[in-house]
């Protein structure tokens, strides 16, 4: 009974969840906080672009074509006389949308496939994983191109394409985590207390696979933005005059000599964004590593 006494002293201390612990560890790493900072700034601009941007991103003044950066036009103007700075800010919104939605698609499909393969195993596992192998055999951008070509070029279709291209990654990660979590005794306990398969998967298995999925999702948002920008650059994603970084690059590519700023800044924005998500993802991976528990 001495344990009870001991615990009473403890009761006023933090009752902290596993996630809080992980977040504290994340806070300690400077690079991942830098990544988080970039991502938060990006989200801020994505939400408040209409209030922050000094000019209209779509309507330009042709008399002001290819103006060098100045106090009025921070990043200069492009071939249509549009403010590059405003367009880059609006582009943040589109890029965040692309990242979140396409990774969302990949997550839903990937988790479903991975769970079926990992939990039921046998012939289902065989069919699902061989299908995933086939998808992995295609170069990603080629597969995305093919999908967009079938669906027709538009931003939404580009998101769908990028989402589908990223399904195999998630399917494999989810499958392997399910395989390892499934062996735990608490899953056996769940069977013995009468849980249905659905309850076992959603209550006992998936919450315990969340860490690797979260890390992969963060890292994939970065690559998804890059892939979507690539599709837009090829004219298969965002359609002009939409302010999307990839299509801005494509539009201004021809004027690289006259107006390098109209190419440089969108490219720079893509780079910083992807870097931010990668740093955050790497930090999360370290923070969620169960071996690092204090």
């Amino acid at each position, binding site marked *: *009974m001495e*344990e*009870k006494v001991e*615990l009473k002293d403890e*009761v006023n201390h933090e*009752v902290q*969840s*596993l996630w809080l612990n992980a977040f504290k560890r994340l806070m300690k790493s400077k690079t991942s906080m830098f990544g988080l900072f970039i991502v938060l700034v990006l989200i801020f601009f994505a939400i408040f672009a209409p209030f922050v941007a000094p000019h209209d991103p779509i309507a330009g003044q042709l008399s002001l074509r290819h103006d060098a950066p100045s106090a009025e036009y921070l990043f200069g103007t492009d071939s249509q006389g549009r403010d590059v700075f405003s367009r880059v800010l609006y582009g943040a919104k589109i890029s965040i949308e692309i990242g979140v939605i396409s990774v969302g698609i990949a997550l839903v499909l990937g988790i479903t496939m991975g769970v079926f393969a990992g939990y039921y195993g046998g012939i289902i596992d065989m069919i699902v994983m061989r299908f995933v192998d086939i998808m992995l055999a295609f170069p990603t951008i080629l597969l995305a191109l093919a999908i967009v070509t079938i669906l027709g070029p538009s931003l939404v279709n580009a998101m769908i394409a990028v989402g589908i291209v990223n399904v195999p990654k998630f399917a494999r990660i989810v499958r392997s985590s399910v395989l390892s979590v499934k062996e*735990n*005794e*608490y899953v*056996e*306990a*769940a*069977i*013995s*207390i*009468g*849980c*249905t398969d659905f*309850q076992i998967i959603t*209550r*006992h298995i998936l*919450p*315990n696979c969340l860490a690797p999925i979260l890390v992969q999702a963060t890292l994939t948002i970065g690559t998804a933005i890059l892939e979507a920008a690539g599709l837009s650059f090829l004219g298969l994603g965002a359609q002009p005059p939409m302010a999307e970084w990839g299509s801005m690059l494509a539009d201004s590519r021809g004027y690289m000599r006259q107006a390098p700023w109209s190419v440089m800044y969108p490219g720079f924005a893509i780079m910083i964004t992807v870097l931010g998500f990668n740093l955050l993802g790497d930090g999360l991976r370290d923070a969620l590593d169960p071996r690092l528990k204090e």
Partner: protein
Amino acid sequence: MSVLLEVKDLKKYFPIKKGSFLSKNVINVKAVEDVSFNLNEGETLGIVGESGCGKSTTGRCILRLIEPTSGTVKFDGKDLNKLSKNQMREVRRDMQFIFQDPFASLNPRLTVGETIIEPMNNFNVGEKKERENRVKELLNIVGLSPYHLTRYPHEFSGGQRQRIGIARALSANPRLVVCDEPVSALDVSIQAQTINLLMDLQKQYNLTMIFIAHDLSVVKHISDRVAVMYLGSIVEISDYKDLYDKPTHPYTQALLSAIPKPDPKADKNRIILKGDIPSPTNPPSGCKFHTRCMYATEICKTDVPEMRKVNDTHSVACHHAKI
């Protein structure tokens, strides 16, 4: 007393596939072979044996946590192996399992309250309010406090976790509880606490228990009857008193002689068994124990010994047992 559980010729083979998919040859690990016993309502059966002799597998097969290869398990007259998945789920309310490793048997993402209430939610026991009261009552019974409800398993010690596991198992009022080495992962001081708790609960709720352990002194404390397993089969099953006073099977004698005696002057005529436990993929012919038995003769190598009765409650599978 009525028979609650009837196990007959229970078998569990784990296939090991070797070779490429062109030349498949399957080797079976014979984890459990022809295990039969009856268990009366309110009785506690201890199962002992070396590690790897199929004790845990037997327990899991009885509750169908793993599918037995063959044999029948009758619980309250129902043949469990003939039930569908949904019917089986209903029956699980009456039979629960307490796990060996308290660190692996609780879901780290669920609070203690959620863990203990889950069986009641799954089996639709009572109203919501009743369930919540029952959780508090259970916590109290196993010696934890109500403020522990919202905590996560990683905040508890091994002994406390094991008690949470016990509370979960008892939550839906089962009739049969299979305890799979519930104390072997705990400190000795906590072991006694946990065993006393289990014994109290057993009396209080008239539970029928199967208590799996490799520690004979623990089993002696809690069991009404004891079954000794060797390489997947029961070699001796008896009233606990009879078994400890007059062990008949040479393997039981060897096991009993290995219990450390607190008196240093007590005569130490330990029976040391030669060799290792044979591989269950290829068990010895005849009596499986003959490779290590000091009384073994020709007949032991060729004939499988039948279970013979020593008296009403005591049976043994040995050619040379004096009956």
